[in-house]
C-alpha cells in the first residue's frame, strides 16, 4: 500500500505542485516522462513521491517526449492508469504519438504547462502548444489557476476513463503564471480524492491473455474513415460526461466548474472571450468597467476540446450583446486566431450575431495587464455604439512597432 500524504485543509501550492499531487492521489500505474521547462516539477515531484513510497506505480525515464508518450501508449494498452507531463517543444515532439493515443482510445492524462513554441526559443507561457493539440483527438481542459490545475487533473481521470468516453485528456495551465505561482489550494484528502477518481477499469487490455487483442491496426481507405468518425462521435459525446463529472466534483467540494465559464454575461453589451490565466485579468477589467457604466462580460472556455459550440453559443445568444473580442495567445500562422474562428462560427448561428474581432496577445509570455483588457473592451463598446467594427478585425495587443492589423468589416 502506498503511504498516505498528510495534507492541510489549505496548502500553498503552485500549479505544478498541485498537478503532481493530483497525479499521486489518482495512484497512476505508469508515468513515463521526460522533463521540460516549465512542466518539469510535475514529474520531478511525482518521481519523489514514488521513491518515498507514496505511489505504488512505475516511473519510467525515457530518452525523449516521443518516447514518453510512446511508453504511455504501451502502458495504457497493457491496461494501466497512465499519465505524464510536458510543455512546448516536448509537446511538439509528442505530437505524432498524441494522435495514436486518441485513435487507440487510451485514457491517458497529460498535464500540459503551456509554453511558446520555437523559433525563437522561448520558455515562457503562451498557448502555442495547446493550440497545436487541438486536432489531436484529445479532450483539452484548461485550468486558470493552481486550484483548478489540481481539480481539473482529478476530473481528467474520471472523464477520460469513463466507459462512455475512453479518450485521453490534457489538462492545461499557463507556464509560470500558473505553474510557478504559489497560491492557496484546498486539496482533498488522499482517500477522498481516490474515491472520487475511482479504480481503473481496463478495456481491451493486452495483459488479458484470455482475450488476445491487436492494438494499433492499420486501416486504409476502406476502413479509416469509419474509425475516425466513431472517434469524433465519442469526443463530441464526451460533453455530457464532462458535465456530469464536473457536477459530481461540485457535490464533493463545492467548487463549481462548467465547460464554458461565463462572468457577468446576463446583461453584457460587450464581451471578451479568453483562455488561461488571463481570464482572471479579464474578469477584473470587466468588473471595473461595470463600475464606470460599461456592461462588460467574459466568456472562458474551460473545455477547449471538444469545442463547446453549444455553450459558447448559449453564452453569446443574448439580446444585450453587441460586440465580442476573441483573445488568441498563439501566433496564428497566417490566419485569424483559432478561438476567433471557432467562437465566430458559434456566434453566427445566434439571433444577435454580435460584431466579432480578434486580438493576438501575450506571445512568448508578454504580460497582459488589466488596463489593456479594459482598453480592448472599451474598443468593443465603440464598435457596439457605431454598429460596425471600427478597427481592423485582427489586431495585436502589446507588440512594439507600427500598428499591425488585418481585414476590415463590410457590415458597416
Amino acid at each position: 500500500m502506498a503511504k498516505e500524504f498528510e495534507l492541510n485543509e489549505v496548502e500553498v501550492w503552485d500549479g505544478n505542485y498541485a498537478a503532481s499531487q493530483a497525479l499521486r492521489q489518482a495512484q497512476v500505474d505508469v508515468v513515463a516522462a521526460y522533463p521540460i521547462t516549465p512542466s518539469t516539477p510535475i514529474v520531478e515531484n511525482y518521481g519523489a513521491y514514488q521513491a518515498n513510497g507514496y505511489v505504488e506505480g512505475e516511473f519510467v525515464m525515457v530518452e525523449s517526449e516521443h518516447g514518453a508518450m510512446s511508453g504511455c501508449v504501451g502502458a495504457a494498452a497493457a491496461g494501466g492508469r497512465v499519465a505524464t507531463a510536458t510543455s512546448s517543444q516536448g509537446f511538439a515532439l509528442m505530437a505524432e504519438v498524441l494522435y495514436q493515443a486518441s485513435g487507440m482510445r487510451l485514457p491517458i492524462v497529460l498535464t500540459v504547462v503551456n509554453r511558446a513554441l520555437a523559433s525563437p526559443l522561448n520558455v515562457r507561457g503562451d498557448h502555442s502548444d495547446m493550440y497545436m493539440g487541438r486536432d489531436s483527438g484529445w479532450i483539452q481542459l484548461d485550468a486558470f489557476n493552481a486550484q483548478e490545475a489540481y481539480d481539473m487533473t482529478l476530473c481528467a481521470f474520471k472523464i477520460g476513463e469513463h466507459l462512455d468516453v475512453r479518450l485521453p485528456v490534457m489538462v492545461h495551465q499557463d507556464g509560470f503564471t500558473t505553474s510557478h505561482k504559489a497560491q492557496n489550494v484546498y486539496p482533498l484528502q488522499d482517500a477522498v480524492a481516490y474515491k472520487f477518481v475511482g479504480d481503473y477499469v481496463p478495456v481491451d487490455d493486452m495483459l488479458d491473455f484470455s482475450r488476445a487483442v491487436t492494438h494499433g491496426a492499420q486501416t486504409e481507405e476502406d476502413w479509416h474513415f469509419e474509425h475516425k468518425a466513431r472517434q469524433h462521435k465519442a469526443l463530441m459525446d464526451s460533453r455530457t460526461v464532462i458535465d456530469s463529472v464536473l457536477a459530481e466534483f461540485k457535490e464533493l467540494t463545492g467548487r463549481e466548474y462548467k465547460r464554458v465559464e461565463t462572468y457577468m454575461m446576463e446583461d453584457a453589451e460587450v464581451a471578451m472571450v479568453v483562455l488561461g490565466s488571463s481570464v482572471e485579468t479579464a474578469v477584473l477589467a470587466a468588473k471595473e468597467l461595470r463600475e464606470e457604466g460599461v456592461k462588460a462580460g467574459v466568456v472562458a472556455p474551460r473545455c477547449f476540446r471538444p469545442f463547446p459550440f453549444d455553450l459558447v453559443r448559449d453564452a453569446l445568444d443574448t439580446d444585450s450583446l453587441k460586440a465580442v473580442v476573441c483573445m488568441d495567445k498563439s501566433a496564428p500562422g497566417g490566419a485569424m486566431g483559432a478561438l476567433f474562428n471557432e467562437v465566430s462560427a458559434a456566434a453566427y448561428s445566434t439571433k444577435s450575431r454580435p460584431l466579432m474581432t480578434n486580438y493576438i496577445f501575450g506571445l512568448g509570455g508578454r504580460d497582459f495587464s488589466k488596463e489593456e483588457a479594459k482598453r480592448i473592451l472599451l474598443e468593443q463598446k465603440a464598435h457596439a455604439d457605431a454598429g460596425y467594427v471600427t478597427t481592423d478585425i485582427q489586431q495585436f495587443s502589446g507588440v512594439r512597432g507600427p500598428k499591425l492589423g488585418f481585414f476590415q468589416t463590410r457590415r458597416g
Partner: protein
Amino acid sequence: MSTGVLGENKRGLKELGAEDKLGWDEVTQGVVLTSFEGDSSDIAHTVIEDRTYSDFNTYTATVASWRVLKPVYNRDICIDCQNCWVWCPDTSIISRDKQMIGIDYDHCKGCGVCVEVCPTNPKSLLMFNEAKDIDEALGEWPEKKKKEK
C-alpha cells in the same frame, strides 16, 4: 510435401479488403481487433493449425498480393538449420519439430531474407519470378559450387 499445416485451415481464406464493411457505429472502439475466437489463454502452446483465428486476424487474410519474386524451397538440400525460420520477418517459414515444411505464400512478401541467410551449398531456398511453376524451378536448381582456390 505435407499439406496438413500448409493447407487445411483458415489461413489466407480471404483477400485483404474482401471482408464485410461495417458502418462507423459498428466498428470496434480504438480499432482493437480480437485475435482469436473464444478463450486464448493457452494460445502460445497451441499449434497454428489448431488455433481459432478470428476473421480479423491477418492469418485469416492473404496479405501477399504485391509479391513479385517468391522463394522456392528445395527439401533435398535443406539441413533444417532453422535460420530462415528465425529471420523471416513475416513468420512465413513453416517448421514443425525443427523440421522445415514449406513457405506460407499467403503472407510471404518476397523480401528474400530467407535466401540470404540459408547456409547450404547450393542454397535450399532461391528466389524465382512469382509466375514461375515450382516444379520447373526445382528442375533448374544450380549444382554445388566448388570452393575457389
